[in-house]
């Protein structure tokens, strides 16, 4: 392949005129908050300290390599110790480090001050999506990657925010101290938004705290930064900062939406309606593991197509979706998804890809199942 000059040419062209979004960014950005700017300043300070030390040490080495070589007729000196210089180059770095530690400590103390927050949001990491819950506001939702599979598989042109786009970003108001309570439902994830300088591990069974106060409205993008399995690279974090007024409007709309969603539970559903909703919900919640074709990725992620559970009694099927299967990657979706979505997904799984059970699981069935468990 490499023998073709055209390949090389296109490679060079790629490098020289790479697509509009590609960049040669070499440094961190100062970010959008006071904390992120202090962090950036620390980063630059320690960087320049390293540069100065590097210039001095490497400069001396290169000078020495140019001058003190046998080919220039140098005779080796014989000195091999000096307590004075040893003490000097122990103490001087120590002093520099102490000076560096002072601003670092200050910033760290500021970052750790989680008190007096004005809005609390619980952030939960799932394989492989984020869940946001506005505490005390009755608003919660999942945030899923929206980059189409075709772009990932190079069958379509990649968009500007390739892999950094979600269906529902986390919306926060500007100029407000927002506290994040970060946890996970399955494995360890890490919630990171570079522009906010917030990175905190999401650990199952524990809650970590972090906070931010964003200056300007805007969209800030980040990613999960702790290896969390197959789709670790495919669970972005997107934060949308709105003005306080816009945020209030948005929150009111979301509350309204949540109320309407609740009413759906008591609605009389038809099989077609459930199948349509189920397909959509399945593709966001289940397809990453069980695949859009229902064939799964055995043996880690079993096939649902023709599976005993998906074609067996409804109760067993509801049970595994609601409660998960301990000791495997199958999570308990009972608390993650609404009754409507659970019912739709289960109905869909029983009647898609050639599974022909023909029955219908309704939101009421799910509610009854949950009640029976209590």
């Amino acid at each position, binding site marked *: 392949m490499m023998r073709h000059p055209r390949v090389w040419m296109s490679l060079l062209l790629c*490098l020289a005129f*790479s697509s509009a979004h590609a960049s040669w960014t070499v440094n961190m950005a100062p970010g959008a908050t006071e904390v992120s700017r202090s962090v950036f300043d620390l980063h630059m300070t320690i960087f320049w300290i390293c540069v100065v030390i590097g210039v001095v040490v490497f400069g001396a080495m290169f000078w020495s390599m140019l001058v003190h070589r046998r080919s220039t007729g140098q005779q080796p000196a014989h000195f091999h110790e000096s307590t004075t210089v040893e003490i000097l180059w122990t103490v001087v770095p120590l002093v520099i480090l102490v000076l560096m530690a002072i601003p670092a400590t200050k910033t*760290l103390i500021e970052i750790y001050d989680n008190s007096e927050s004005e809005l609390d949001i619980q952030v939960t990491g799932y394989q492989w999506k984020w869940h946001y819950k506005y505490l005390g506001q009755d608003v919660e939702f999942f945030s899923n990657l929206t980059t189409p599979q075709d772009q990932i598989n190079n069958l379509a042109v990649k968009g500007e925010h390739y892999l950094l786009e979600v269906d529902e970003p986390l919306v926060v108001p500007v100029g407000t101290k927002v506290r994040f309570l970060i946890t996970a439902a399955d494995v*360890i994830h890490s919630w990171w938004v570079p522009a906010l300088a917030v990175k905190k591990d999401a650990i199952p069974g524990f809650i970590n705290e972090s906070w931010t106060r964003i200056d300007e409205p805007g969209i800030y993008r980040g990613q999960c930064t702790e290896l969390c399995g197959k789709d670790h690279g495919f669970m972005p974090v997107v934060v949308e900062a709105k003005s306080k007024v816009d945020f209030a409007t948005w929150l009111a709309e979301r509350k309204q939406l949540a109320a309407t969603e609740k009413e759906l539970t008591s609605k009389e559903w038809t099989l077609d309606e459930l199948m349509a909703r189920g397909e959509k919900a399945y593709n966001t919640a289940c397809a990453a593991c069980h695949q859009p074709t229902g064939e799964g990725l055995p043996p880690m992620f079993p096939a649902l197509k023709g599976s005993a559970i998906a074609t067996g009694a409804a109760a067993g099927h509801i049970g595994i979706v609601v409660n998960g299967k301990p000791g495997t990657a199958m999570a308990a979706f009972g608390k993650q998804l609404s009754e409507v979505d659970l019912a739709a997904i289960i109905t869909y799984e029983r009647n898609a890809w050639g599974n022909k059970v023909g029955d219908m699981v309704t939101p009421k069935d799910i509610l009854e199942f949950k009640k029976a468990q209590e």
Partner: protein
Amino acid sequence: MSAVIDTHGHAGHDHHHGPAKGLMRWVLTTNHKDIGTMYLWFSFAMFLLGGTMAMVIRAELFQPGLQIVQPEFFNQMTTMHGLIMVFGAVMPAFVGLANWMIPLMIGAPDMALPRMNNFSFWLLPAAFSMMVSTLFMEGGGPNFGWTFYAPLSTTYAPESVTFFIFAVHLMGISSIMGAINVVATILNLRAPGMTLMKMPLFVWTWLITAFLLIAVMPVLAGCVTMMLMDIHFGTSFFSAAGGGDPVLFQHVFWFFGHPEVYIMILPAFGAVSAIIPAFARKPLFGYTSMVYATASIAFLSFIVWAHHMFTVGIPLTGELFFMYATMLIAVPTGVKVFNWASTMWQGSMTFETPMLFSVAFVILFTIGGFSGLMLAIAPADFQYHDTYFVVAHFHYVLVPGAIFGIFASAYYWLPKWTGHMYDETLGKLHFWMSFVGMNMAFFPMHFVGLAGMPRRIPDYNMMFANFNMVSSIGAFMFGATQLLFLFIVIKCIRSGQPAAAKPWDGAEGLEWTVPSPAPYHTFQTPPEVK
């Protein structure tokens, strides 16, 4: 002991002193040189295998999008690449160098515990065959990163994880036995007159490394045993649902893991401290401070582990403690770098391949040290943590650090091992190709990391595309160049100018007092050190 040797000297004069014939020579050998050779070849084989996996990773990351492998397999590649390079390539290479060189440097006839030496080597092929075989098992091999954080490596792991755990146990046993052997040899078998403070620095750094190994390999064994219990016996060490704690895993792992990174660099410090004086034709500057600096680094390595965990949510005071302690490491490390630079100062330098690798070691390892210092600043680490900046950092300390140290040692001592000089032109070519390839592969990783690219992802946004392509090209170049090294070594063994007992005019040490190649048995009568 000496009585036995005496008897042997009188009665067993006609015994053959050469190696046994055939394959059984290698299976049954207790000779430190044979075992050293096997360690070195094994390590090189693992280096090529782990390198091949790196090539798969870089090929997938050549462009955005998924082209060559799926995320599942990509994760297995990153995991296996890390495990193989750490436990299969770097550590055995240093044990190989220790086996070959420590007895020659201290004037001992062999390692103190030769049979155990044989056993500790042969555990390794068993361990790695088992570990690599998991790639072909149903569900695939380890896919949870070389740091194998729970619960991804327990509840959510592929079934082959049990084989992985057993393989880690075997590697641990091998390392512990190797380390005990090194300690026993150095403390008991030094030639008369060789006091501790007269030992070559390579011996010193290995002595300290061996103590680190003995201290932390059992911790790793405990860690994987707890995993085993969680997976198969219903315990909940690392599961909050059963009263355990996933963060406990990280504390235990990094209590092993941080000293482990010094295990991979200290012997290289020692080797470079022998090579730079040899080619500067000037004694090592500050021998005593080098010894104390090494000991200080080893001590500090036990109290900095949580700097790998700045984002897990440790309390403020803990965070501050680990930040300060980590920054402190810069002091003894700086002392070492300053000492090497001063050794070169006003020397009469020539730049044969071992010297080239050693000078590059000092400069590039220092760059890795600088990024390490940046990572130590906890608030800044929140931005660096688990991004490509970290990948750049540890590759800078491990590739031009540990691996260049190993290359420098190999070229320096090849004449002693083979009795032939290697091809200097090809050696220099190997150096320059490695140097350019390695910098091209790893330097841009700093940039994409700072720009926000997380590590361990198979696909990325276009804003990271340019530098990733540069990285991949550099990595392919570095990878391909290592085949040249194989060629150089084989050429050196089979042909090449005969080497004098002391082929480097500035070299010091007992190893140069025996002929090249070093006879099968050396120092049966201990030399006198003044």
